[in-house]
């Protein structure tokens, strides 16, 4: 069966520090991969998605970036964190490009920028 791992679960970082969040998927090949952010009291905001190695689409311009160095690995990064980067970050995957492919989510990373 397919599983998705996301870490760390919680992270407290000072303003201006770098960020690296990692997500890996097991049990499937060539998944579509996604990074979402959920701010307190708000819905989900799509940040990045990827349909293959090295292919990244950005939905919202900001100081975050994403990379996909391997088929089942998706990394969210920042060179310098802002206070506004605080939130709950969720990685997800889907099995194909058809519109009826649901997303499968990791357990999320709670990021607090101080």
């Amino acid at each position: 069966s397919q599983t998705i791992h996301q870490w760390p679960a919680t992270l407290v970082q000072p303003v201006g520090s770098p960020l690296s969040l990692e997500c890996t998927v097991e049990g499937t090949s060539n998944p579509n991969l996604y990074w979402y952010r959920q701010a307190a009291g708000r819905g989900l905001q799509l940040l990045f998605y990827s349909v293959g190695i090295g292919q990244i689409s950005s939905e919202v311009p900001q100081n975050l970036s994403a990379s996909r160095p391997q088929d089942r690995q998706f990394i969210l990064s920042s060179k310098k964190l802002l206070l506004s980067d605080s939130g709950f970050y969720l990685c997800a995957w889907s099995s194909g490009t058809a519109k009826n492919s649901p997303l499968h989510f990791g357990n999320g990373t709670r990021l607090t920028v101080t």
Partner: protein
Amino acid sequence: AQSVTQLDSHVSVSEGTPVLLRCNYSSSYSPSLFWYVQHPNKGLQLLLKYTSAATLVKGINGFEAEFKKSETSFHLTKPSAHMSDAAEYFCVVSFLSGNTPLVFGKGTRLSVIA
């Protein structure tokens, strides 16, 4: 324009009473529809999905949803609420094939009172 609207930001029910969480969509295309549940500090879990087969869809944990094209609705119901159902619920719509990401509603927080 294509959109999804969850009509209630917060719903409160007593344990053992029915649950109704409302969702409407706007689209020129025939959509695929999903409901997800999110418990505090956790990722989103797929409850059920509609993909143009039967209009009444049964999901996990006793939830079901009915697709009504004439009303452009996909409301989530459960006959009898349990305390463990207290969570955030998201209605999600996929309008197109291809790599277009899903569109999330803003969520409905369900509270269950003992």
